[in-house]
C-alpha cells in the first residue's frame, strides 16, 4: 500500500507479462540504436564520401576494398546495409515519432477544446474529424504528398494531418466522460480557473487512451510511411527509411540479392511487432474492464 | 420445518489471484425450506454474491469452489456434470441479478430471451413458449404483456426490466430463487412495488427464496430468517424477529445500530468502528475482532466455531451478547 503510485502500479502490471517485457526491451534497444545511430552504425550511409561504389552489391559478411566488413552486405552503391538499416530505422522512428507527438498535441488541444466548449466549436471540430476519419489515411497522405512534393518534412506533415483526428476524437470522448465526473464538478465548485481544470485535472485523466492510441499510431505511421515510400512518394532516396530500403530492395528480391530487402524488412517487422505488442499490453493494463 | 429445498454445507469458494488466494466464501452453511424467505445481509465484499453464484455453480476462473456441498432437494449439485447443472439452472434454481440495466442482453428482444430460456428446459413449441412468456409477464404486473414482449430492454424503465427478470425467474416454477440485491438500484417507490409482487408470488407458490441485500430494513420486512455475513462467513443466523430484536453477534448489533432510524433524532449513531477488512489478509482469529468492542485475546487467536442455539439460531462468537440487552 505504501508509495503505490499510478505509475508504479502501471509498471508492476506491465512487468507481469514476459512477452510485453521482451517486446518493451526490444523496443528500447531499437530506440537507442536509432537515437545513437551515428555512434553505433559502422558507416554513415548518407555521407557519400564514405561509401564506395566499388564495394557495391557485396554479400553479407564480405570484406570490402577498404578492409571494411559488410556484415549484412551492401547495396549497389556500396552502402553498408547494416548502417543503412540503422539510419533507416532512425528516419522511420523519427518520422513517426514526430508525426505522432505533433498529432497528439494538435488532437489533444482540439479535442479538449471541443469537449469543454461544446456548441459550434465542438460541431466544427468534430465534423472536420469525421471528414478526416472517413477518409483512408494512405489516400490522404498520397494525395497530400502528390500535391506537396517529397521530403521528410512533407511526410511528417502528411502523417500529422492523417492522424490528429484520431486523437481529437479520443480525447474529446474521454474528456466528455471525465468532465461529467464529480471531481471536475468539485474543481468547478472550488472556482478553479477553467484552464487549470482542463489541463491540470482533465488532461491527465484522458492520457491513458491517448497513450494506447499513440502506440498503435506510431506503428501505423511507420507502416504508412513505408507504404508511401514503396509507392514512391515517401522520403527522399538519399535519406532512406526502412520502408524505402525495402522498396528499393524489392527490385532485388528475385535477383538472389535478398539481403538488400530482407534485413530491412525483418527490422521493420520486428519494430512494428514490438510496438504493437507493447501497445496491446498497455491497453490491456489501462482498460479497467479487462483487469482482474 | 419441511425438508429443506436447499441445504448448503461448509461451502468454500476461493479466488487465485496474482497476490495470493482469496477465500471469498469460507465455510458457509445454510438451509431454506419451501416458501421460506432467507435474507442474507452483510457489508460490501462480505461474499454474499459469491455465495449465490457458488450455489449455481457459476464461479469463473480464477475462482473455484474449494469445498463443501450444495444439496438441492437432497441432490448434491457439485457432483453434477456441467450439462446436468446447466439443465438445472433457470429451471430448478433461478437467479435475479442486482442491476436490471445490465442483466438483460441489450441487443435481444425480451421475447427472444424469455423463449430461449423456456426452450432450453422445456420441449415446447415456439408459440407455446411465447404464451408462457406472456403469462409470466402478466403475473408480475406488466401491463399489455403481449406487446411488451416485442420490445428491447432499453425501451423499458429499470423497474420494468427487473420485473421481466423476475418473470423469467418464475416462469418455470423453480424450487429456489436467489435474488441478489434486486432492488438496490431502484427507487423507493419502485422497490416497494417489486417487494410487494415478490412477497405475494412466493407465498402463492411455495417457492424458496434467498434474498441477498445489504439493507437490514428490507430484510426486516420481507424475510422469515436472516443470515448475517462477515468476511466470507455467516456469523449469525436466526428468525428475523429474534435476530433483529435480540442480536447476539456484536457485528449484527453494530449493523442495526448504524441505521439512522435506530436512534432518536438528534442522538449520535453508534456505528461499528473501522472498516471492512481485505479478504487478502484477514486477521488470524475472528475476522471481526479488530472492530469488535467485546473482543478478547481469544478472539484474536482463534476463530469461533458455529454454535447452534436452541431457538433455531446459530452463531459464531466467543462473546455473544446477552439476550436481555
Amino acid at each position, binding site marked *: 500500500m505504501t508509495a503505490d503510485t499510478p505509475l508504479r502500479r502501471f509498471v508492476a502490471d506491465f512487468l507481469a507479462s514476459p512477452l510485453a517485457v521482451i517486446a518493451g526491451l526490444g523496443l528500447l534497444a531499437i530506440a537507442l540504436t536509432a537515437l545513437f545511430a551515428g555512434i553505433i552504425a559502422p558507416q554513415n550511409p548518407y555521407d557519400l564520401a564514405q561509401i564506395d*561504389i*566499388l564495394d557495391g552489391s557485396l554479400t553479407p559478411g564480405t570484406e570490402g576494398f577498404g578492409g571494411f566488413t559488410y556484415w549484412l552486405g551492401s547495396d549497389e*552503391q556500396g552502402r553498408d546495409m547494416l548502417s543503412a538499416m540503422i539510419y533507416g530505422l532512425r528516419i522511420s522512428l523519427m518520422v513517426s515519432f514526430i508525426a505522432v507527438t505533433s498529432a497528439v498535441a494538435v488532437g489533444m488541444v482540439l479535442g479538449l477544446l471541443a469537449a469543454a466548449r461544446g456548441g459550434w466549436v465542438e460541431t466544427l471540430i468534430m465534423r472536420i474529424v469525421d471528414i478526416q476519419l472517413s477518409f483512408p489515411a494512405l489516400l490522404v497522405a498520397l494525395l497530400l504528398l502528390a500535391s506537396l512534393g517529397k521530403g521528410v518534412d512533407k511526410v511528417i506533415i502528411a502523417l500529422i494531418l492523417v492522424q490528429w483526428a484520431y486523437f481529437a476524437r479520443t480525447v474529446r470522448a474521454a474528456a466528455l466522460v471525465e468532465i461529467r465526473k464529480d471531481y471536475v464538478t468539485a474543481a468547478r465548485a472550488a472556482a478553479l480557473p477553467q484552464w487549470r481544470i482542463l489541463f491540470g485535472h482533465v488532461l491527465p485523466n484522458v492520457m491513458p487512451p491517448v497513450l494506447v492510441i499513440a502506440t498503435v499510431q506510431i506503428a501505423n505511421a511507420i507502416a504508412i510511411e513505408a507504404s508511401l515510400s514503396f509507392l514512391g512518394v515517401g522520403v527522399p*532516396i*538519399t535519406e532512406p527509411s526502412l520502408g524505402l530500403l525495402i522498396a528499393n530492395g524489392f*527490385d532485388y528480391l*528475385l*535477383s*538472389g540479392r535478398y539481403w538488400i530487402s530482407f534485413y530491412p524488412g525483418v527490422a521493420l517487422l520486428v519494430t512494428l511487432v514490438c510496438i504493437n505488442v507493447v501497445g496491446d499490453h498497455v491497453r490491456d493494463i489501462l482498460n479497467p474492464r479487462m483487469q482482474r | 420445518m419441511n425438508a429443506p429445498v436447499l441445504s448448503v454445507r461448509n461451502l468454500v469458494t476461493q479466488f487465485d489471484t496474482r497476490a495470493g488466494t482469496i477465500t471469498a466464501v469460507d465455510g458457509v452453511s445454510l438451509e431454506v425450506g419451501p416458501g421460506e424467505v432467507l435474507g442474507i445481509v452483510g457489508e460490501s465484499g462480505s461474499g454474499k454474491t459469491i455465495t449465490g453464484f457458488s450455489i449455481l455453480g457459476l464461479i469463473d476462473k480464477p475462482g473455484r469452489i474449494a469445498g463443501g456441498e450444495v444439496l438441492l432437494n437432497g441432490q448434491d449439485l457439485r457432483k453434477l456434470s456441467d450439462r446436468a447443472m446447466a439443465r438445472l439452472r433457470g429451471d430448478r434454481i433461478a437467479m435475479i441479478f442486482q442491476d436490471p440495466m445490465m442483466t438483460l442482453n441489450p441487443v435481444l428482444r425480451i421475447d427472444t430471451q424469455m423463449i430461449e430460456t423456456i426452450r432450453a428446459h422445456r420441449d415446447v413449441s415456439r408459440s407455446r413458449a411465447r404464451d408462457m412468456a406472456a403469462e409470466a409477464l402478466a403475473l408480475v404486473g406488466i401491463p399489455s404483456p403481449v406487446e411488451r414482449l416485442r420490445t428491447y430492454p432499453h425501451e423499458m424503465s429499470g423497474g420494468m426490466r427487473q420485473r421481466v427478470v423476475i418473470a423469467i425467474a418464475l416462469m418455470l416454477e423453480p424450487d429456489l430463487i436467489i435474488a441478489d440485491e434486486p432492488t438496490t438500484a431502484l427507487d423507493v417507490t419502485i422497490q416497494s412495488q417489486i417487494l410487494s409482487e415478490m412477497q405475494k408470488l412466493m407465498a402463492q407458490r411455495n417457492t424458496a427464496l434467498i434474498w441477498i441485500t445489504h439493507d437490514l430494513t428490507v430484510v426486516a420486512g420481507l424475510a422469515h430468517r436472516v443470515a448475517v455475513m462477515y468476511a466470507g462467513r455467516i456469523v449469525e443466523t436466526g428468525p428475523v424477529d429474534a435476530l433483529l430484536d435480540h442480536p447476539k453477534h456484536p457485528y449484527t448489533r453494530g449493523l442495526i445500530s448504524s441505521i439512522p432510524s435506530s436512534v432518536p433524532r438528534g442522538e449520535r449513531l453508534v456505528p461499528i468502528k473501522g472498516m471492512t477488512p481485505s479478504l487478502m489478509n484477514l486477521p488470524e482469529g475472528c475476522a471481526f475482532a479488530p472492530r469488535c468492542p467485546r473482543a478478547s485475546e481469544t478472539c484474536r487467536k482463534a476463530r469461533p466455531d458455529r454454535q447452534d442455539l436452541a431457538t433455531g439460531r446459530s452463531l459464531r462468537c466467543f462473546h455473544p451478547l446477552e439476550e436481555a440487552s
Partner: protein
Amino acid sequence: QTLTAGFASEPSSVDPLYHNLGPNNATRKHMFEALVGEDANLGIVPELAESWETSDDGLTWTFHLREGVKFHDGGDFTARDFLYTACRIPNVPNSPSSMAGFIKSAETITAPDDMTIEVTTAVPYPLLLTDFASFGVVSASANGHDGPVEYTKDGCPGIDSYLDSNAYNDGTATIGTGPYKFVSFTPGESIVVARNDDYWGDAPYWEQITIRPITNAGARVAALLAGDVDVIEKPPVQDLERLRNDPKVNVVQGASSRVIYLHFDHVGEPSPGIEGTDGKNPMKDLRVRKAISLAINRPLIVDRIMGGLAVPARQLVPDFMRGTDPEIALEDPDLEEAKRLLAEAGYPDGFKLVIGTPNDRYINDSKIAQAVAQMLTRAGIQTEVDAMTASVFFSRRNNYEFSLYLAGWGASGAGMASPLRALVASQDKDKGLGGTNRGRYSNPDLDAIIEEALSTVETAKHDELLRQASRIVVDDMAILPLHFEVTPWALRAGLTMDPRADQHTVLTTVRPE
C-alpha cells in the same frame, strides 16, 4: 499458339495517331504499318511504300506503294488512306501529344494515282523518311470516309470531323494493314490481337497475342517465372543475372539509341542548388564541366549500377547510328585532373551541388544519380541527389530548377540529328529547335551547323555535318552523356526475339529458338 506478354507500361489508347509515346507506338506496330519501316537498328526499310525517290533539288519525294495490301476489314490499301491519315494527324480530338510534327515539314501531299504519293517540302528536309516511319496508316473507310481525299496544310476539304480515340479503343476503327488484327482492349488489363491471315508479308508466328500491363518490375519477373506470361519487357537489370542462370528463362538484349545524360544549367546566375561559389554559376565554366566529366567513372556505373547492361557514352547517339564520329574516343576517368581543373577554375575546395533526377523513368535513374553524386563528392564537389517522381521532375526541370540534372534521350532513326536539334540547339520556337534544351545551352556556331545539316538531303554531306556538330558538343561539354542503355527482354526458355534499338517491344519477332 498464343503468346502472352508483360509490358511495363500500357498504351493510353490503341488509336495509332492519338498519342506519340513509346508504348503506343510499340503497340501500334502490331496492327498498323507506316509508309516506310525502321529495322531493328532504326535503318529505313520499305513497308507500305515499296520504293521512293527524291527530286534533285531535294524538295519533292515520290513514294510507290506496295500492291495488294489489304486492310483487316478486307478493303484495299491505296494512297487515299495515306492522305486521310495525314488529314487526321493534326485533328485527333484531345490528343495529348499529337503526331503533327511528323508531317509538319510536308508542304503538300498528293496522290497522282492510287499507288503513288508525292510530297513536297519548303526547304530540303533529310529526315522526312524518319518522320514518315513514325506513324501508322489508318483506313479512310473504317474511319467513315468513303469519298476521295485531298490534303492541305490548313485542313482537308470535305472532312469536318474525325473519330476520336474511343472509336479505336472499342475496335470499330482499329483497322490496319499490320500482321495482327485488333481483338480487344481492356485498359489496365489486356490488349488482345489475332493473326492477320491475309498479311502481305511473312505470316506471323502466333495465332493470338495478349499484352498485359504489369507496371511493377518485380511483379513482371514473378509473372514470367510463374509462367503467367511468355515474355516480358524491361526486366530489372539486377534480376538479369539470376534470370540468365535460370534454365526456364531466356534473356535477349540489344543496344538501344537511348542515352542517359547530365545537363548543365548554362544560364542561371546564381544557379539553383549551388552553394559556396559566391553566387557564381560554376557550370558556365568549361573547366568545371570537364572536371565533372573526368570525375565520373562511366564504366564503373555501367558495371555496378547497370549490371553491365549499358555502354559508356561520350557522344549523344551510339556508334551504329547516323552522324557519330568514330574518332571521338571515351575518356578515362581522372580524379586528380578533375581536382586540378576545379582548382584552376577557382574552386579548390569545390562547392555544393544538387543533382535533380527522376526516380521512375529510366533504368536505375536515381541510382545512377547517386553514384554520380558519390563520384563528384570524391572530386570535392559535395553533391546531393534530389530524386523525385517523373511528373514532378519534368515540371521542375522545365522551370529550370536544377543546375545539373539527369535525363535520358531515345534518338529516333534520324540518328545524331535527333538529340542535336532537341537537346543542344538554342531554344527557338519558330524553327522548332531546342525543345528539350532545358540547360539552355546556346552556341551560334553549333546552331548554324545543325540548321545546315537539317536542310541537307544528301546523305554523306548531312552525316558529315552531324559529325562536326557532335565534335563541338563533346569539346564544349555542352551536355554530358553517361551511357547508352542496353535493353533486355526476358522470355520463356525456347523462345527468342529481335531486340530493337528504339526499345519497342514488337512481339511479331518472338519465335521459337
